[in-house]
């Protein structure tokens, strides 16, 4: 088994690494230095940091992503916890995964119907006497739908972390006189924190870039980094500025990864 | 004595400035059961991997039937291994596992089936052909691993701590089976273990190793009765080891008392170590005592009592006795001259054998009379 003889195996994969991983990243960084007129390096970055519009947009995008991640976490942890105690949990887990198989656009599309003036949500509001309201094309509806879409991606890593937890720790804690709540707070939660971090990773970064939701549900009121990139690339054709925002998004991604990276990650759910 | 089948000559293995094997010389003859015995990290598995072809030695020769095989890869050696934890292929059935080597040789199907059946019968797993590996107990997996290796009809079978994963009862059963299998097949077994009991029970010859050296080789009885040094005495069986001094041939001073012993050829007044096995010590009344001691505590071991005692000079002793003693009681101990074995400090195996040769067979006869 000499390595030299079999280096050919590596060729297709190596080619992929160079062409589709290294080259695109290099190109987007390179492109980010040029504005529409192909001049002045760093011009785009100057525009980005001097214009209040871009900075405000970035701050907004991060704020929304934080809210979405927070809501997703608050909803998902108890769900994963209760789910993990069920008898047929594999089956229920499958039911959690199943919606992720439905195309994200179909789910967004469903909410166009649900949130419309005569839709189900407004019928419900009318029924309890506080409606109807304009629901579609609001910030709240954007956050709601984004949270809805992300929930399974948060539940899964937390569930896996709970599954990896040796029940002996819980028994030991109870044996030492801890109450259920103390056991949860001092043993279960700290030990499943890696799962939460994996979930945050899986939710936060995509939430910065969900441009189709801002278009379909947010009605262009919410502009995320992703929306801005899409607009610069496909509408105004200002690839330079689009790339600049892309680089900002990549930097944001790296920061989040650094903050949430554990050196021994449990099986997070890859997207 | 036949033509040796495997020989290691001046084998040295270094990793960086770490020397794993320091000048190993050993010879394996056909049809014998050999054991490499030593604590973990002593280099015994490295020797096994050297013979099986998974390890390239730094220097020295590995001979098979008199031919140097240092550069022959593992898949071309007529040697097979039973791996620690078995290394069975989990995606294959029992029969597929056993047939693996023969299938690679593209033997006819009927021949393979017949041989697999025959081999499984040999390891008492007839009828297990279609089972999944995961459906087998530890002992059964062990047998499949053996079957997978012996179906290749190797001249030498290497066994890397194959019994370590089994529970105590099964391990004892397997000792009988392995010994029996080796005798029926008539091929050479080289067995690696850190369990002295296994080694003593099964082997024709044992190589005791420590720190990359073979300290002593010989039959189980030789090694047990005449350990060459403190390490071997301590590692094999239980022992009481005390400092002493040779005063004349067959006379040694221990604990300030002079005793008759069965060793000679050692210069007068040389400091030595003396071994007394716990089972060779007999409890006796104080009048007949060679040594006097106080009982500290005792444990009932089923077929004997293991008694811990302290002598008048403060040395701790271990005594195996069929009869119980009483804690705190002062009792006498006696033993026969031939039970007292003298070891010289830093004596090498060759020197030891040479010294034994000078008086054994003549004086020994007198002293061994009970």
């Amino acid at each position: 088994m000499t390595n030299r003889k079999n280096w050919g195996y590596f060729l297709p994969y190596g080619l992929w690494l160079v062409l589709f991983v290294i080259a695109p990243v290099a190109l987007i960084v390179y492109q980010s230095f040029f504005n529409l007129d192909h001049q002045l390096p760093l011009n785009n970055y100057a525009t980005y940091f001097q214009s209040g519009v871009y900075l405000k947009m970035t701050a907004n995008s991060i704020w929304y992503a934080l809210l979405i991640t927070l809501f997703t976490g608050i909803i998902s942890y108890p769900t994963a916890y209760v789910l993990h105690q069920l008898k047929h949990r594999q089956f229920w887990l499958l039911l959690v995964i199943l919606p992720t198989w439905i195309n994200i656009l179909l789910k967004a599309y469903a909410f166009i119907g649900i949130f419309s003036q005569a839709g189900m949500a407004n019928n419900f509001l009318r029924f309890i006497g506080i409606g109807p309201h304009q629901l579609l094309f609001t910030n709240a509806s954007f956050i709601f739908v984004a949270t809805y879409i992300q929930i399974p991606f948060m539940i899964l890593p937390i569930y896996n972390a709970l599954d990896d937890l040796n029940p002996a720790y819980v028994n030991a804690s109870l044996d030492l006189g801890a109450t259920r709540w103390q056991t949860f707070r001092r043993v279960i939660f700290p030990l499943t924190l890696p799962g939460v971090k994996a979930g945050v990773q899986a939710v936060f970064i995509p939430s910065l870039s969900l441009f189709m939701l801002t278009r379909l549900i947010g009605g262009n009121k919410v502009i995320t980094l992703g929306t801005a990139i899409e607009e610069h690339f496909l509408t105004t054709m200002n690839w330079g500025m689009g790339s600049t925002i892309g680089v900002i998004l990549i930097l944001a991604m790296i920061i989040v990864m650094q903050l949430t990276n554990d050196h021994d990650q449990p099986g997070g759910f890859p997207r | 004595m036949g033509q040796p089948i495997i020989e290691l000559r001046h084998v040295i293995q270094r990793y960086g400035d770490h020397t794993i094997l320091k000048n190993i010389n050993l010879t394996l003859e056909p049809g014998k059961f050999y054991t490499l015995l030593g604590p973990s990290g002593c280099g015994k598995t490295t020797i096994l991997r050297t013979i099986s072809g998974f390890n390239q030695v730094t220097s020295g020769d590995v001979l098979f039937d008199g031919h140097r095989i240092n550069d022959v890869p593992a898949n071309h050696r007529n040697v097979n291994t039973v791996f620690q934890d078995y290394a069975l292929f989990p995606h294959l059935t029992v029969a597929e596992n056993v047939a693996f080597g023969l299938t690679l040789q593209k033997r006819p199907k009927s021949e393979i089936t017949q041989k697999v059946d025959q081999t499984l019968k040999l390891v008492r797993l007839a009828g297990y052909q279609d089972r999944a590996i995961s459906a087998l107990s530890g002992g059964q997996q062990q047998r499949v691993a053996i079957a997978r290796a012996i179906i290749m009809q190797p001249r030498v079978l290497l066994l890397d701590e194959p019994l370590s994963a089994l529970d105590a009862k099964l391990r004892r059963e397997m000792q009988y089976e392995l010994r029996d299998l080796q005798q029926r097949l008539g091929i050479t077994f080289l067995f690696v273990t850190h369990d002295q009991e296994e080694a003593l029970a099964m082997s024709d010859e044992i190589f005791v190793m420590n720190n990359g050296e073979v300290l002593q080789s010989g039959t189980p009885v030789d090694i047990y009765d005449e350990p060459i040094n403190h390490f071997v005495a301590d590692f094999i069986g239980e022992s009481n080891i005390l400092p002493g001094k040779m005063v004349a041939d067959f006379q040694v001073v221990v604990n300030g008392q002079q005793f008759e012993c069965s060793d000679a050829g050692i210069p007068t007044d040389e400091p030595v170590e003396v071994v007394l096995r716990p089972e060779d010590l007999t409890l006796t009344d104080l009048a007949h005592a060679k040594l006097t001691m106080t009982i500290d505590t005792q444990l009932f071991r089923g077929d004997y009592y293991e008694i811990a005692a302290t002598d008048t000079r403060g040395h701790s002793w271990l005594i195996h006795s069929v009869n119980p003693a009483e804690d705190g009681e002062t009792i006498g101990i006696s033993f026969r001259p031939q039970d007292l074995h003298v070891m010289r400090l830093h004596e090498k195996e060759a020197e030891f054998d040479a010294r034994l040769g000078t008086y054994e067979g003549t004086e020994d006869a007198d002293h061994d009379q009970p």
Partner: protein
Amino acid sequence: MKKLSRAYLILIFIILYVPIIYLIVYSFSAGDTMTNYHGFTWKHYADLFADPRMLAIVANTLLVALLSALIATLIGTLGALSIHRTSKRVTRDVLLNLNNILMVSPDVIIGASFLIFFTTLKLPLGFGSVLLSHIAFEIPIVVLMVLPRLREMRPAMLAAAQDLGATTKELLSRVIIPFIAPGIFTGFFMALTYSLDDFAVTFFVTGNGFSTLSVEIYSRARQGIDLEINALSGVMFLFSLLLVAGYYWLQQRHHRRKNKRQGATL
């Protein structure tokens, strides 16, 4: 406490499934909007299956998914084998980190950077660029599914095979590939779903003329409610169910076969 937690779980499941059920219910509604159910009809399904453009798009989507998943599985498996064999820790870590870049990057970044890449190379946008992009973002998931199986493979098992006379080639075909087959299978399956699920990357690199289902749904949904999309979602949901069922059936069968053998112990 127990009742409360059950109620909570039921609520979550309702929220998870209401939109999907809502979509499908209205696909059978005789009206034109997703409000006020107008009575049962197959009309929208009939429209869907009579729409040649839609059928062509479905065919495109499936073709891209299958082809890209196959190629990605092949390249990814080779990649996993090479990563696994790298003895230097540093090299392996670098390779793994590079591998994971596309896993963690937001879709928009992947789409935008691929768009720049294809344009720089002057590659026309269309089927080819979409296929290449899908292969590219599926490879890392295949690697990640195969590597754990490779790591589970104990060196002693390979040594045993060599000890019994296996050559390097036989080692690969008789021991390694069969052993990691479940990982390869899962990798293929994941790659397939990634392809079917993708919208953003395809949206960036698709150009004019070529479209996949996601892109088509997006452009139609931007124009408002169209119950043909509901019908489409009904079909896709059924397809997903079949895929999941098929996947679990295959896994179950694998287990059953194992269990049957185990049952033979009695």
